[in-house]
């Protein structure tokens, strides 16, 4: 998938194979099968290019990430009970309340410094 996302245009199976072979050797049919599976599952779209299929991702990596994060951060029931987030995010007012509660609770023991976001 990374190869296809990096490419500006649809790729043929042999293009993907050529790119992957820089790292490891794979059979043409292996790559073809994988890409065909990805197509069947809806991750890839394909179009005729001469006698071969040219594949491109249905959606960008960013779109897939956004979809996963939307489900992860969702507090409603429609994401299914299998996914459990460590802790739900809260509004700034609630966040202040929680920080205050932490400060009260840790008034005596040494306070851990919270690492600021570096990027």
């Amino acid at each position, binding site marked *: 998938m990374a190869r296809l996302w990096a490419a500006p245009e649809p790729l043929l199976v042999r293009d993907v194979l050529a790119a992957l072979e820089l790292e490891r050797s794979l059979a043409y049919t292996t790559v073809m099968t994988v890409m065909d599976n990805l197509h069947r599952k809806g991750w890839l779209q394909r179009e005729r290019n001469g006698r071969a299929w040219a594949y491109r991702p249905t959606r960008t990596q960013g779109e897939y*990430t956004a979809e996963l994060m939307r489900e*992860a951060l969702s507090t409603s029931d429609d994401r299914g009970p*299998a*996914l459990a987030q*460590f802790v739900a*995010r*809260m509004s*700034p007012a609630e966040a202040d309340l*929680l920080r205050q*509660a932490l400060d009260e609770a840790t008034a005596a023991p040494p306070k851990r410094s919270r690492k600021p976001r570096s990027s």
Partner: protein
Amino acid sequence: MTIGGVLLLYAIAVGVGGASWFRRAQWPARSPGLGIAAYLAAAWSALAALALAGVTLAVPTTALGGGLSNAIGACVRRLRAEYATPGGITFAVLGIAVAAALVLRVAGATIVQVSSMRRHARRQVALARLVGRPDPRLDALVVDDDQPTAFCIGGAQPTIVFTAAALEWLDPSQLEAVLAHERAHLAYRHHRLQAAARVLARTLPFVPLLRDAPDEIGRLVEMHADDAATRSHDRAVLATALVALATAPARPPALAVGATDAVARMRRLLTPPPPLTRRSRRAVSALVALLAVLPVVTAGIPALIALALGRVPPQ
């Protein structure tokens, strides 16, 4: 009073009274595992009592009575007298309808819940594998996103996901503690308990105990996973990780939900309540067992009486 009435009152008492009792109870936070068992047992108990109340209404006037008396070798008339209900056939039909509707609803809700859970989990795992990169040190997937969070997906392919922002936001010991929490969710199959709670809520959403099950079980499994994590990690470290991730700026801004839960969890981590004593644990275990069998035993009492009396040889 007939046994059907007793079962009905029992179902109402547990289904309504049990909900407010659990909301006020402090002990589940001390032993969340037992709390989960007790809650699910109580909810099952109320549901079973309601269904069995329906069945017992139908015993005297239908073939059920004859079949049951044959099965236990008791006199039919005696059995019918023990299960007697006013209203005859109308109540019998009503009772069987209620029992059948409940069984069908539970079966339907279970099928819907399990298939939807599997479908969601499969897609979520596929998405996470697609966009995430495996981190061998954490044995988890890391997804490039600037919202710091961590989550797990239970099921056939148990998966833990951190965002890249979470790795920046947390120090290594906090990261390990959060990881232990997520591993506990997966190891204890908490998603199944959640699914069971949702089946209960779907079946009878107007019974408070069943309606509140997803929220209550959700709260308790978080505490259960916190406890499992703090067996090998520092409580304060997990508490600060929780606060760090909960208070990180959200995008879009989070709605006002869950703060009380997060505050309660953090307080509980920093000043843990003493776990239940061995004696209280035994008492709760006994309560769980009692809740599980009480409806069935109650429904069977008249049959036992009829059995005892029916076997007395005629003079």
